[in-house]
């Protein structure tokens, strides 16, 4: 059966740690890093990458446009 797999890339230096992407993800992929970027913000990262479907919800809710999304169909 065809399965959709996705992945996100967060521009961690531009992330402001607002956490809006965390709640926007339907499959609970995103967490906030322990580490901070040079501005002191805990940035978003994929804590659960296998669950990403590439739905782009996180990217379109991000006010700073720091998330890029990739998607492939696997068989």
């Amino acid at each position, binding site marked *: 059966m065809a399965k959709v*797999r*996705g*992945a996100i*890339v967060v521009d961690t230096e*531009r992330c*402001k*740690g*607002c*956490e*809006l992407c*965390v*709640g*926007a993800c339907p499959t609970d992929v995103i967490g906030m890093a322990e580490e901070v970027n040079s501005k002191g*913000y805990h940035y978003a990262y994929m804590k659960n*990458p296998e669950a990403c479907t*590439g739905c*782009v*919800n996180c*990217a*379109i*809710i*991000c*006010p*700073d*446009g*720091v*998330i*890029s*999304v*990739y*998607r*492939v169909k*696997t*068989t």
Partner: protein
Amino acid sequence: MAEITLDQIIQPENMVYTRSRIMTDTVLHYCPGCGHGTVHRLLAEVIEELDLQSETIGITPVGCSVLMYNYMDIDMQEAAHGRAPALATAIKRLMSEKFVFTYQGDGDLAAIGTAETIHACNRGENITILFINNGIYGMTGGQMAPTTLPDMKASTCPYGRDVQMMGNPLKITDIVATLPGSYYVTRQSVHTPGNVRKAKKAIRKAVEYQKRNQGTCFVEIVSNCNSGWKMTPVDANQWLEENMLPFYPLGDLKVPEE
């Protein structure tokens, strides 16, 4: 079959979303989670998709989004506080082939700029107005705006807006919809992914309709000011849904007769 690796997924040919190239690389100065950035991004996507980069002239307001011209790679002009529709009127009348928009907060559009807003829309200027309603004066420290809800706290009404003393909130978008010069009037929000998608469709219509020369297109976006509201971004969007939306219901207020 072997599982696909992240490196195999993260390849240019698999990219389904990235920030529009109409957005510059300048980091937005907005507070974390502020809806201004989301709306900038949607407008940038629409301008890119409709191939209007070199045809667009935007007017920025006074308010937090005053520096919008640093973030979008298009021609922009800054207006005095509230005067964006007047400036847009002049530019559109002189260069009628351009796509001309204003981007304004509620203090800018519905307080100091009320006359310019009403008269531009009543004259039916062929401009597009994006109105970001966060219920407060964000830039200057969260003072009460005409749009502040009854009982909502702001720095100049710390016990909440008392409508007996401070007057009622102004639903200026409802007024604009009654004016003969307005062509398309809608109210949207960007606080959930579903609402972002709907808001983008509305912005796209408001951009495309300008070509018809039938009057003013007006898009209100009910947005947050988490700093002014003194909430986390996540709480602010929740508060928006529970408090702003019952008072400012989403949807079209005026649609063109097809």
